């Protein structure tokens, strides 16, 4: 079958924007349970990250810590489009991805605090966590590295004849790394089952997309390789879920890779030590006020009478308790034994 051409990819992109808005109105096509889960999962990530930021300030977390606040709709919407057997891989802003994959907040938080109970026994930290059980393949600290790695996961899925696919996340900064295009080329050449999700939060550390990218419409970055791309409102979980399902269906049908550009925004600095002087307070506040994915969903749920205010408050309380438990666990879990220094180097 003929592949969607690059020029078709362009036209599908403009359609995508429409379908994004359409998806908002079409919210009821998601079941009550699904919508509640969107809310629950996004709020869990938000509260987790807020707490991580807080205890970083208390000195409990060291090194780099990149928070996901503002971008929650992306991973939650995409997770709804895949199965638990599908693989997920991302770069270093990874806490949200892990929670969306169903990894235990306690294990993630304890890794942030560098404790024995962390997913990597305290040896990986914020940027390097993995869970075979959850099919989460990291957590990679080198910008761009996760893209060939994710392509390799998809290579293995195809080689093994499984129906599973890979979600390979990257940021808007990643798309200027050469290995991304090496990967797009091989994925299309070999028809690999991978969805590349570009989380465009507008800033690669302090450099805006405009200042770093000759082609700022990142969904077009697959054009040279005939990989179709689509732009999605990444602040709208319904739009993400709908676009995600479409892309995942396409990829799972054996048609090769697909690119989704998620237009999103991070509220915090690049890492905890970033004062974010490269953008104005007004810009951030405007995004928060007008486009917050969680506020928006909460309002929709109330408007559409999916839940009452009290029911939502109950969810809030439940999540607060989970996060409190996670922090307690992360504080009380012992540091790794000194003997752990020399383990896990070789099998």
């Amino acid at each position: 079958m003929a592949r969607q051409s690059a020029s078709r990819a362009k036209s599908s992109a403009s359609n995508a924007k429409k379908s994004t808005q359409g998806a908002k109105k079409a919210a009821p096509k998601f079941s009550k349970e699904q919508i509640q889960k969107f809310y629950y999962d996004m709020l869990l990530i938000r509260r987790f990250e807020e707490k991580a930021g807080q205890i970083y300030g208390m000195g409990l977390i060291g090194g780099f810590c990149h928070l996901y606040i503002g971008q929650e709709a992306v991973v939650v919407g995409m997770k709804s489009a895949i199965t638990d057997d599908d693989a997920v891989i991302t770069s270093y802003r990874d806490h949200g991805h892990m929670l969306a994959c169903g990894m235990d907040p306690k294990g993630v938080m304890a890794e942030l605090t560098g404790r024995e109970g962390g997913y990597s026994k305290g040896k990986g930290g914020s940027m390097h966590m993995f869970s075979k059980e959850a099919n989460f393949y990291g957590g990679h600290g080198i910008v761009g590295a996760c893209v060939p790695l994710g392509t390799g996961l998809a290579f293995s899925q195809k080689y093994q004849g499984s129906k599973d696919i890979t979600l390979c996340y990257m940021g808007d900064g990643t798309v200027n790394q050469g290995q991304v295009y090496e990967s797009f080329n091989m994925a299309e050449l070999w028809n690999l089952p991978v969805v590349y999700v570009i989380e465009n939060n507008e800033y690669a550390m302090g450099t805006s997309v405009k200042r770093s990218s000759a082609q700022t419409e990142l969904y077009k970055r697959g054009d040279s390789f005939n990989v179709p791309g689509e732009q999605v409102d990444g602040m709208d979980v319904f739009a993400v879920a709908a676009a995600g399902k479409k892309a995942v269906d396409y990829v799972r049908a054996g048609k090769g890779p697909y690119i989704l550009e998620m237009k999103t925004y991070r509220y915090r600095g690049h890492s905890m030590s970033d004062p974010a002087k490269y953008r104005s307070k007004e810009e951030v506040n405007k995004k928060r006020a007008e486009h917050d994915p969680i506020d928006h969903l909460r309002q929709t749920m109330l408007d559409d009478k999916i839940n009452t205010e009290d029911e939502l408050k109950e969810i809030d309380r439940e999540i607060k308790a989970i996060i409190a438990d996670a922090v307690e666990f992360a504080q009380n879990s012992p540091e790794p034994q000194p003997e752990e220094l020399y383990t896990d180097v070789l099998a």
Partner: protein
Amino acid sequence: MPTEILMPALSPTMTEGKLARWMVKEGDTVSSGDVLAEIETDKATMEVEAVDEGKIGKILIEGDTDNVAVNTPIAVLLEEGEDASDLDDFTPSAAPFASEGSDDTTEDTSDKEEPAPRVSTSKTPDAYDASGEIPEGTEMVKMTVREALRDAMAEEMRKDERVFVMGEEVAEYQGAYKVTQGLLDEFGGRRVIDTPITEHGFAGVGVGAAFHGLRPIVEFMTFNFAMQAIDQIVNSAAKTRYMSGGQMSSPIVFRGPNGAASRVAAQHSQCYASWYSHVPGLIVIAPHTAADAKGLLKAAIRDPNPVIFLENEILYGQSFDVPVMDDFVLPIGKAKIERPGDDVTIVSFAMGMRYALEAADKLAEENISAEVIDLRTIRPMDMETVLASVRKTNRCVTVEEGWPQSGIGAEITAQIMHHAFDYLDAPVLRVSGKDVPMPYAANLEKLALPHTDEVVAAAKSVCYRD
């Protein structure tokens, strides 16, 4: 004056080949670009084209002749106005003449008969005993390193469906150096995969596939090109087991030719042994013989860790005895005492072993008995065997093609200082590649590489015999 047509060198390391057949006959007129003959090397069949215009006066070497040395006159071309009578008092030049400064690289020292003088057979206590690796009485077959590597991959691919090989030209072209010859035919395109020229990308794809349960063999056309991929090798393959607290691993083999070939200059002649040897989480293997290449590559493919498997283009065509066994696998991390001795320990690996063994022969003529140790695995390094030998000989020389600073010799020297200082009767000396990028000119290249005479001189120096 008739012009000689010489047997051409079709690759940097070719020293001889088969003159398969002539496409012209005596009396034919040829012009530049015409195909004259077909030449078979161990890698490929190539056509030889005429460079000059003229008439084929005489064919000196018939078709279907094996082992024609490079630069042997194979035919005589008559220029305009000349005829066969001009050949009456024409004597072809003696063949072959080597270009100045280049070494005869095909000489296989492993088969050399050892000279009569002092050769020790004494055992080195506490050293690894490699004699048990091949059961006594096992039938041996002569095989090139190239064939041994191919057989190792084929045997492991037959055994384990998860094993596949990917790289540039590994499939349809049958391998840039013909190491993967025949694998596509046997295993098909699903398991023998041609990649684009995209080292960084396909190294990462290999590591990702290894995370997900496959057993990739990633071929780099040469390790020089793997510098493009070194981030994936070091940051993704080597560190993930540690960073994941042991959950995720990358059982992958990165293999390909390493070090100097012949006359390919600075960007294609680097030895990466010490680079990868620096990295915890990697295993680094660099065999010399075909048997070690086979037994260790099979072990590498089965190993649950990322393995850097450093081959050598010049060694690919060398033949060695390989045991005929159903499943010949060697232990990783064990050195081999290739030649026992009492007076000085020479430690080397891969191509360095050639210089070391040649030096041992020369030293024996001067009544110095050298114990030659082939490290075989660079990381983890079998220092037990090296130290046991040094405690016996009290002297040590290291030999490698790589650069001296932070090299393998530097590491061995430091370890001996730490663990056998009191046993030393002389400072450890290093013989290495010179501290310069590899030059192209034949004479300079020869100077840049380690040389047997340098090993002899170093050994005599530590024996205070210079």
